[in-house]
């Protein structure tokens, strides 16, 4: 614990707790000395140290948005099996770190009893990284957690097994701000608005700085306009690309529209440098409706992609590599997705 006076002083700028205080002893002993790892079964791997010590990891799918009760439940499991230590991953999975192989199975049973899946390692569908959505963000065009839950229920099997050709990283962002690493995912689902923001003319002057609102628009669609004698702005519908940038700067330009908000699907992104260079995901489906609570259209589209990939890709090929080999025309042919003018990038001169 950081060394500060916890009594009376107001504490600021201390930074995070020091990580060394939270490393399990086996990790402290073998820090930087790991020799290799092996994947023992879906969701379970072992890291072997130069010292010969073995560290077992059990990866558990988490919902990321979790309750304090969940936090207490996993803490209990950590106490019981891992000396009170546990960690999360960069994709919001939870990992239990065990030094005893015999604890693996009992732990997995208890985890599963709590309703959480073990998996997400190797050639599996990773946890879906997602963002706030309707839960907490004002810009959102879709409901992050809702869509993700529907998807994970549906494709659960790909998480708990490793029968895909390679890792598949799926991500969800609820608007074009693309919070998260969604832009470079094997499968990216992005919330899309389809209508320009509405101008709450009477509130613009009070809530917004007009020059920076105008400057925020990437396509110069926001223009100054005096409305009812008050300085305000107007939006050129013919130019607006529904990005929500102006709204981020000016809350008097709400963009949410239940009827026209939905999601787009981009695929073939990749972050690792393995074999091929990192690359962004590319558009395959420009728009699907929000259809809560189960988003059947989105699930169908993702299923189409996953099945075509599973069928067509060779062992070890990420989605990007598969499409690179067969070509986009073939991809659209196989999947039957319609190729439209929206798939052609005209936004920027290049």
């Amino acid at each position: 614990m950081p060394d500060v006076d916890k009594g009376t002083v107001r504490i600021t700028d201390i930074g995070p707790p020091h990580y060394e205080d939270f490393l399990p002893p086996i990790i402290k002993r073998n820090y930087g000395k790991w020799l290799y790892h092996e994947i023992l079964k879906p969701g379970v791997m072992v890291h072997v140290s130069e010292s010969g010590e073995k560290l077992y990891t059990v990866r558990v799918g988490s919902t990321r948005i979790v309750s304090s009760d969940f936090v207490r439940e996993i803490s209990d499991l950590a106490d019981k099996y891992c000396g009170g230590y546990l960690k999360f991953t960069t994709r919001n999975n939870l990992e239990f770190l065990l030094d005893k192989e015999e604890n693996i199975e009992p732990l997995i049973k208890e985890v599963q009893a709590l309703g959480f899946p073990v998996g997400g390692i190797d050639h599996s569908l990773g946890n879906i990284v997602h963002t706030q959505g309707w839960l907490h963000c004002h810009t959102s065009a879709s409901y992050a957690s809702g869509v993700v839950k529907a998807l994970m229920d549906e494709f659960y099997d790909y998480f708990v097994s490793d029968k895909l050709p390679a890792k598949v990283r799926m991500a969800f962002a609820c608007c074009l701000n693309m919070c998260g690493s969604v832009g470079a995912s094997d499968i990216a689902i992005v919330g899309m608005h389809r209508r320009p923001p509405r101008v709450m003319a009477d509130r613009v002057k009070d809530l917004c700085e007009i020059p920076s609102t105008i400057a925020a628009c990437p396509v110069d669609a926001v223009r100054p306009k005096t409305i009812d004698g008050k300085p305000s702005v107007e939006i050129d519908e013919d130019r607006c690309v529904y990005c929500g940038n102006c709204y981020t700067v000016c809350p008097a330009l709400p963009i949410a529209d239940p009827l026209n908000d939905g999601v787009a699907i981009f695929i073939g992104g990749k972050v690792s440098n393995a074999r091929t260079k990192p690359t962004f995901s590319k558009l395959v489906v420009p728009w699907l409706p929000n259809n809560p609570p189960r988003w059947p259209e989105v699930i169908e589209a993702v299923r189409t992609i996953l099945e075509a990939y599973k069928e067509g890709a060779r062992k070890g090929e990420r989605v990007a590599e598969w499409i690179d080999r067969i070509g986009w025309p073939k991809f659209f042919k196989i999947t039957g997705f319609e190729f439209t003018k929206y798939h052609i990038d005209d936004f920027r001169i290049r």
Partner: protein
Amino acid sequence: MAGVRGYGGGIVGRFSDEPDEYPGVKEYHTARLNQIEGFFYTSDVLRKLADICDEHAGGLFNFHGSTGDIQILGFKQEEAEELFQKCTHLGFDLGGSGSALRTPSCCVGPARCEWATYDTLHITDNLTREFQNEMHRPTFNYKFKIKCAGCPNDCIASGARSDLSIVGVWKANIRIDQKEVAEYAKKFDIKKYVVDKCPTHCMDYTDGKLTIDDSNCVKCMHCINSMPKALRPGLEKGAQIRIGAKVPMVQDPRLGFILIPFYDVNKDKEEDYAFLKDLIQKIWDFWDEYGTNRERVGELIQRVGVGNFLEAIGLDPLPEMVEYPRANPFIKFEEYLVPDDEEEGKEG
């Protein structure tokens, strides 16, 4: 507005449009708590966080936010100060938001991975402490993100979403254990799944012997990933520094470019990362001087030109910085000969 005294960020405010109809969520703010590097926790600290969350907020967390913070969801401004102070007493501080340095984050690195070429947790922790002020008091043109991955697998996805991305890499030859290669040969076709997939075709597997022409290896990790028991990254370990990645707003999404192909991070660690901190400061100074509001550093560099940016921060242009050299011939030459003395001159 939502926030805590003396800080310009770390809390994202949310007010309901219809407070009367939904008084319970008329305010529903989120606190970003700087995570522990590597996302390591103890049950003890987690339970205490859970208590704070129940007491002062809606009992909901994000483990973790996309930048890396722990997020506590759903509190009112009147709870903010006490929530914050309870967290600091537990050892947690707020993370970044707004036009500030955002909470740096890293992959698990040497804590549990055999491939880390440097200590991702140490550097991330160190930078985070160094730049507390830049994180808590937004004075930048826009956000700035730093992420550290221990090797080119980039398990923190730094290359696609951090203005400054540090990715481990090595120089010396990949270490080969031919005995273990032979073991893998029993399990799969090494030629097909490893050698033929090497992007630079610099591997050979003949008569049961694996050789690598390391001078042509681009350190992609594929072969090592495929045979972790047989191959290990080379020694002379360091990192690559990339600059300028970001997602769409305002210009469009972009990956960064290599600013420093080989940064001797392990030596710099001994000097408290003096070189890196100086570099970061120079980049911020440049951004501060020439950037406009809501312009990420990558967009600025593109606007003013990579050459000018490099000159300003004192780095030489290197072929590693580009995917390929220019194809278009509109070169803005700055040197030319002057008739009188026929000497090479610089433009005024």
